[in-house]
């Protein structure tokens, strides 16, 4: 999906939104629901897009939408506290003010995926930017072929969105696998990296769109496994992460070779990044 058509007057100035709900998902991970004070000022978001969120006096960081795109009034963001800004975001209580700019970027190829099998591969917090796509896939189930969701985390405690995962796992029209890197005896599920699940799943590689999000190493392995399974580079989409200071193409920080991740991505077909991902420190 393209960036909003009518750019706001000052693309660097945030709108004010309020935290309406805060939910603890996993160690260090919280989901915030935000409501803009002036809802009319925002363009609708698409799965895979992101907002720039400001904690006043602390800073601003890119955070993906993690909520249901059907419900455009609730802006949902799932955030891992890793540093000053993300940490401050996760500490905000309901009622607190947040600065918000967005939505930004090109999201998941929901239209291209219609009529095809969809394989979703998520690592860790990578499930958050994929959740809007999953809501859409299941809400419009008849438009897609097989749906496969493979999700890996470090440990059972880190599993996000358990309620949704349970619901999706219970469906007969989807294959949902969760795996963890390390587990105690109480865990009866898969153990091992998520990419090892790919060869075990059934989908038609010639008619598949794959959506991949997670740490860069995990995405490399996922791409290799998907290509081994016969999925074309054009049909594998990944969401890239780069330092971002503007999200509108001014600051330069998000460059990855020729692309600006903020506006050409963050979601790219692997075919477009193939040569670049193989290079160190690009």
């Amino acid at each position, binding site marked *: 999906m393209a*960036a909003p058509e009518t*750019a706001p*007057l*000052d*693309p*660097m*100035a*945030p*709108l*004010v939104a309020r935290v309406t709900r805060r939910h603890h998902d996993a160690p260090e991970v919280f989901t915030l629901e935000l409501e803009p004070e002036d809802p009319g000022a925002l363009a609708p978001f698409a799965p895979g897009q992101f907002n720039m969120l*400001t904690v*006043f*006096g*602390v*800073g*601003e960081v890119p955070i993906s939408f993690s909520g249901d795109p059907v419900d455009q009034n609730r802006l949902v963001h799932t955030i891992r506290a*890793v*540093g000053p800004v993300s940490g401050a975001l996760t500490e905000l209580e309901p*009622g607190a*003010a947040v*600065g918000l700019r967005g939505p930004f970027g090109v999201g998941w190829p929901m239209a291209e995926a219609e009529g095809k099998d969809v394989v979703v591969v998520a690592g860790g917090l990578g499930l958050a930017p994929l959740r809007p796509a999953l809501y859409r896939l299941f809400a419009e189930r008849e438009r897609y072929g097989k749906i496969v969701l493979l999700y890996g985390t470090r440990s059972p405690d880190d599993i996000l969105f358990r309620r949704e995962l349970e619901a999706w796992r219970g469906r007969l029209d989807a294959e949902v696998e969760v795996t963890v890197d390390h587990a105690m005896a109480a865990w009866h599920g898969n153990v091992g990296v998520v990419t090892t699940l790919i060869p075990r799943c059934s989908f038609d590689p010639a008619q598949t769109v794959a959506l991949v999000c997670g740490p860069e190493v995990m995405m490399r392995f996922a791409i290799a496994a998907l290509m081994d399974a016969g999925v074309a580079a054009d049909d594998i989409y990944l969401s890239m*992460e*780069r*330092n971002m*200071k*503007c999200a*509108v*193409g*001014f*600051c*330069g*920080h998000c*460059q990855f*070779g*020729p692309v*600006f991740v903020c*506006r050409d991505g963050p979601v790219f077909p692997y075919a477009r990044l193939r040569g670049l991902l193989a*290079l*160190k*420190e*690009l």
Partner: protein
Amino acid sequence: MTFPRKVVREQPTQRGLMGSEKQAILDAEGLQALLTALKARGYRVIGPTLSDQAVIYDDIETLDELPRGWRDEQDGGHYRLVESGEDRFFDFVVGPQSWKKFLHPPQQTLWRARREGEAVTVTPEPAEPERFAFIGVRSCEIHAIAIQDRVLIEGPHADPHYRARRQDNFIVAVNCARAAGTCFCASMNTGPKAESGFDLALTEIDGPEGPLFVAESASAAGEDLLGELPRRPATPEEVAAGTAAVAATARSMGREMPAEDLRDLLLRNLEHPRWEEVAERCLTCANCTMVCPTCFCTSVEDASDLTGQETSRSRRWDSCFTLDYSYIHGGSVRSSTQSRYRQWMTHKLATWHDQFDSSGCVGCGRCITWCPVGIDITEEVRAIRDSERDPVSES
């Protein structure tokens, strides 16, 4: 001059239309009249001045502030002003600063937020229109301004601050009658003659009683202003003297960029051993990016008063040579010097074409002059190019 959208791509075809009757001669008095007239029209007049032993762009009112009689010596890691012993106004070339100092300043407040009780109000910093008249803009610099226009106002989003500072400029170009030891605009097709993107262009020639300027206008505003100044028509000999001086400059460039498809050359050599070699010399000081007239990268900083009632965000120039620039949680993407030098050079010369449909380099040579260890972008390109030609290093 309002947004010369196509400066770089435009071919120098309409020049013929102007003919020599459009060319007038100004003397020093005429030049002073130009400064005065611009000020009278409400422009903030900026031009080259002498300061800290360098040519610095600053507010000027009179001719006395120009570095008359001075000339620069430039080479890799070397800049020195010397008295030339000649009565000429513009015998120096470009200094450490560029016009981006005014159009895209090093520091810019973006917005302020105020908390009152529960209410928070964000006030974007007003984009203050400034009417700049720039005196002595070189051809490479006109190209650099056009490049920054494309980045900051011609993309999907426009930077209101840049736009406000850019929208009402009066550009007085000076065609270079001398090239510095680090100039290579001729090989980048960006100079030394200003072809478009200015209101008035001046070519300095030696008259019997002191310096004269062959002046031509390229906009209605320029023509209008020129019509107000004390002047006389240029003789064919004077026009020819100006043309010859600029042609001689084109032949005496201190550096030359190899005539090659630089984009393809660099992109097929992203893992060339030369990156490692140059990294042994590069100090990652970021000087090259600060003096570069097209480098546009910025970072942001938030500030807060003690109570947290008033907060603000400002942006400042940043450089791809810093570690922070590419930091993402867990570490910087480009931690080695070679990866940062490669980012800089391949962005400038290669991926800029993908992003903005032109090179990001205008051949001004500042990055060579102001590099403390004299790293030369043309030499780095040549080393990579030659390695492809030399069958020994290919094996």
